[in-house]
């Protein structure tokens, strides 16, 4: 039993990332409200950012800023070789990915505004029901039913 707990705590942030990702994924699939879906997508993406940031971690590493850089080239080389830095690359990648995630959210919210203007609701069920009723050509079944009624 204590073994399992040790395993969980040894890679604590990875467990968190998997859990968060599943929460986000669940929200995207199961929630009927469109805003909740977008929040789910955000949690999902943030979980992946957490994964990348965890990758960059080096035990005892400091921020990747060159110390004593102004002392000249030799000193700078010495500083690089002696100090342990965390890996800066995943941070930079995630900065880009955050920008992408923000733009995706912005587009999603803009679409949601349009959907609300059109259908007066953000609930998936209501929108679907409204669409079926409004546009018989949307579903063949509804069209045939309507023709049958006429």
């Amino acid at each position, binding site marked *: 039993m204590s073994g399992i707990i040790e395993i969980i705590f040894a890679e604590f942030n990875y467990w968190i990332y998997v859990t968060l990702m599943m929460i986000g994924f669940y929200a995207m699939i199961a929630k009927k409200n469109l805003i909740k879906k977008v929040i789910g997508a955000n949690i999902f993406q943030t979980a*992946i950012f957490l994964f990348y940031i965890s990758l960059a971690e080096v035990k005892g590493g400091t921020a990747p800023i060159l110390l004593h850089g102004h002392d000249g080239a030799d000193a700078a080389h010495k500083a690089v070789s002696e100090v342990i830095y965390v890996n800066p690359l995943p941070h930079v990648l995630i900065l880009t*990915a955050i920008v992408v995630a923000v*733009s995706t959210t912005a*587009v999603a919210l803009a*679409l949601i505004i349009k959907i609300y203007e059109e259908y007066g609701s953000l609930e998936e069920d209501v929108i679907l029901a409204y*669409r079926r009723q409004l*546009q018989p050509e949307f579903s*063949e079944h509804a069209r045939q039913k309507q023709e049958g009624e006429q």
Partner: protein
Amino acid sequence: MTGFDLITDHLPVLTVVIPLMAGFLTPIVGWIDRKLCWYWVMLTMFAVLLMTSSNLYTVITSGTIHYHLGGWTPPIGIEYVIDLLNGFVCLIIAFIGLMVGIYSIESIKKELPNKIIPFYSIFLLLITGLMGMTITGDIFNFYVFLEISSLTAYALIAMGDRGDGVVASFNYLIMGTVAASFILLGIGYLYAVTGSLNIADMQGLLPSIYDNKVVLAALAFFMVGFSIKVGLFPLHAWLPDAYTHAPSAASALIAGLMTKVGAYAMIRFMFSVFTPEFVIDMTRMAEILTWAAALAIVVGSVLAIAQSDIKRMLAYSSISQIGYILLGVGLANVIGMQGGLLHILNHSLMKCALFLVAGAIFYRTGIRNLHQFQGLGKKMPVTTTVFLIAALSMIGVPGTVGFTSKWYLALGSINAGQWIFVIVILVSSLLNIVYFWRVFDNIWFGHPHEVEHIKRDEAPLSMLIPMVLLAVLCIFFGLFAYYPLHYVLEPLSNALLGIGVLP
């Protein structure tokens, strides 16, 4: 060094940068005069077409182009690599982009009179995204371009049918975000085990750690992510709505290019990031892909028969055609691979032509329900003839380009000893006849009840030119399939499967 040399040296990056810059400058051009937007897009697309043709020519004559961004050498800096595979796909993107661009002037004026400037701006950004996805040799850079192309596609689809467009776009956005996130996660896994993001570098580093579970998980994430992006059968839910409700020009562009570039990315990741031994023998991913593709071919065709909206029918037909491409890729022998790759070209030409025809009919008559197409054969003879040629090519009639790729796919299946796929291809061709026949029947043999005397009312010339050109190319490549096969696809298939080396 003259200015011309400077341009030729930087051609690979310019194919991405020029549409990007032009896309951002479009609002300024449109601010001066809205009519200038179209000329601006034409100028850009023509330049891009010239550059991609030049790139492909250079690749065929003198081998793969490597371009280092900012002069940083590969494992550290971002590298753009153009080999036969992306040279070929880039040329398709530029050509289809130009055709849809020419077509769009009238169609956009009618369908989106207030959104001409944003449409063209986003149009160019979509081309940038697709071009960048294709040309880049760095997988994180690939992810960024993937998102650029996805975001612009969401915006284009949302401009479509009132009410429906936004819902279709939102569905696509949710599915697309899942796909892109999976791909990002896969990239993270590969970075964690190799410490590299460069495709060529990674292919060298990965084989020694193939027994690592992380690599396996990365492959699984990539395959699921790309399956959503290309609309492979069980994950196709976003595709029919998105294609149906986008504006006509955007449908043609997205149907012609988005899924094809997704298929390209799948090929690139399967055979260039991972090695053929890994996907074919060690994980048998290629075999799984063939079965999924066979399922998509049959189900897509069957669903297409049930549709009455022509754009929706074409969308379901796209699902089945994507199956053909991936079937060829999954067969993983040289002939099947050639068939699959040729089908990327075919499907872009045919599906783009068909969507342009659907748009032209909608432009003239406002009809999309194919049961109301009676008499169109007399009203719009050129447009419907283009439809006939493209549809025959889709069915796979000898003499059209669709026949060649189906022939190669069937031969590839026989070579792989999988007779069932030959049957699948035949059955699907029969189903194609069924759903296209319903359209032919209405266009040429249906009797319009309302109007007795039908006046000829053809689509405008700017719409006819690209449609006719695409139809002519369908026949040209059907008769002279030797050229793409001999110069590009055969050496390419050999190189992808690790039998030969690229020049």
